[in-house]
């Protein structure tokens, strides 16, 4: 028996083949932004692709296994994946490396197709957000949570 028959798509989870990319960086993914991205992906019956953008310093090769950074990224990636799966979405998480967050993003979208990008304003600098808007290969939403909503979300988990 081939290993290919081991896995079949779960019938509860529907996907139209569309892919919604949610890049994040800096060891944090805003819960308000994640919830919004999940709503967008659900509405489009799309696969949610949370992607942790890992910055590799110049002195290391781009594919270096930097354990400390990976250890910081994993819980956020797992949490994002779990939230998406619980919402009934197909989730296809990624870790992408680059010299800067935008370099990692560029490497990711040059390797894979995405139908929509939902970028959280927290976590990217204004310059990086501008770069995303100019260079993104597809429709892009920049989400900046209402500060009051964000404050309440933070209070809830304090």
């Amino acid at each position: 028996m081939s290993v290919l028959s081991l896995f079949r798509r779960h019938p509860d989870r529907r996907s139209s083949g569309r892919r919604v990319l949610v890049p994040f960086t800096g060891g944090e993914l805003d819960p308000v932004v994640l919830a919004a991205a999940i709503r967008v992906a659900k509405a489009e019956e799309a696969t949610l692709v949370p992607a942790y953008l890992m910055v590799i310093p110049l002195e290391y090769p781009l594919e270096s296994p930097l354990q400390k950074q990976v250890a910081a990224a994993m819980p956020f990636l797992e949490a994002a994946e779990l939230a998406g799966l619980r919402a009934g979405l197909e989730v296809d998480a990624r870790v992408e490396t680059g010299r800067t967050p935008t370099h990692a993003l560029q490497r990711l979208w040059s390797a894979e197709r995405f139908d929509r990008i939902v970028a959280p304003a927290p976590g990217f600098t204004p310059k990086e957000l501008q770069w995303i808007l100019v260079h993104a290969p597809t429709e892009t939403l920049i989400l900046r949570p209402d500060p009051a909503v964000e404050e309440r979300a933070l209070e809830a988990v304090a």
Partner: protein
Amino acid sequence: MARGHYRILVGMAAGVGKTYRMLLEGRQAQEEGRDVVIGYLEPHDRPETAVLADGLQAVPRIHTARGDEMDLDAVIRRAPELALIDELAHTNLNGSPHEKRYEDIEDVLDAGIDVISTVNVQHLESLNDAIFELTGVRVRETFPDRILDEADEVVLVDLSPEELQERLRAGKVYKPERAEVALQNFFRKENLAALRELVLREVAEDVEARRHPDALEPLSQQAVAERILALVEPQPKSQRIMRRAWRSAQRLGAEIDTLWVHPAGYSASEEEATQLAALRRLAGVLGIHFLEADGDDLVETVRRVAADRGSTYIFVGTPDERRRVEILHGSLLSRMVRELPGIDIRVVADRAKRKDAG
């Protein structure tokens, strides 16, 4: 100067009695003639703790408009034999000598002062993800696992979930209005039971580690060395299998290989090629060796690769076999167990499908 003795009282949640126990131990030490001070006591407004704190000298805090902090320099200048410092995971206000209180405690220990401190298990860095999965709460104030490893003693302050809820209802932990909200959220019985299990496991692991403090003999190391083999295919869920294998490898100190088995001459579709490229990138980032093997018989191919690589532990996704195939040819997992003797097999489940998952 000899470093001070570090004793950490760990509990499953606020209200189990860590601070009370810390003060009690401080008073006992004082009665035995030791010079004891309160370095910092969290102002919880709990009458029982206030009574205990009364008999102990407290080093004055630093008052600011944004709150109070421990006066680290004053504690070190005072040079007691034992300092009681509450809540080691606390984040200090900007402008403090260190960002975190556990870093302050390091300085106090380096000054040769013994310390008793307290912490809740949800602040432990490596459990952050598990706590989020269990409770839905992302804890932001964390402390590194090495703090527990480096402490001289880690002591569990335990209370059953029912007793803790009773303390909450009696207003012994929070004021009544806050207690009611807490009981319906973080302090739900199932949350407390899960947290208690985590803290019990954590302290048990700590005890076990202290029983074997020295490096194992080379032969023993060989006997207990683990090597993980994660079975993947070009599917999104394989990313999860690799991440789960990596997490286990961190705990076991193991090397990881990941294996994709396909029929000889198999040509991946465009979508599969994308997935494979993503898996290879993840393997690179996680330091995993990515292997590919031809084989029409999965179990036989895995057996061969596992023998070559010295694998001791196999990670596999949840099989989704049709019942008819299972009856005719036997279950794949049964075959793996039967034909891979001496190798542990772990089925990586989808946590979102857990019946108690929210």
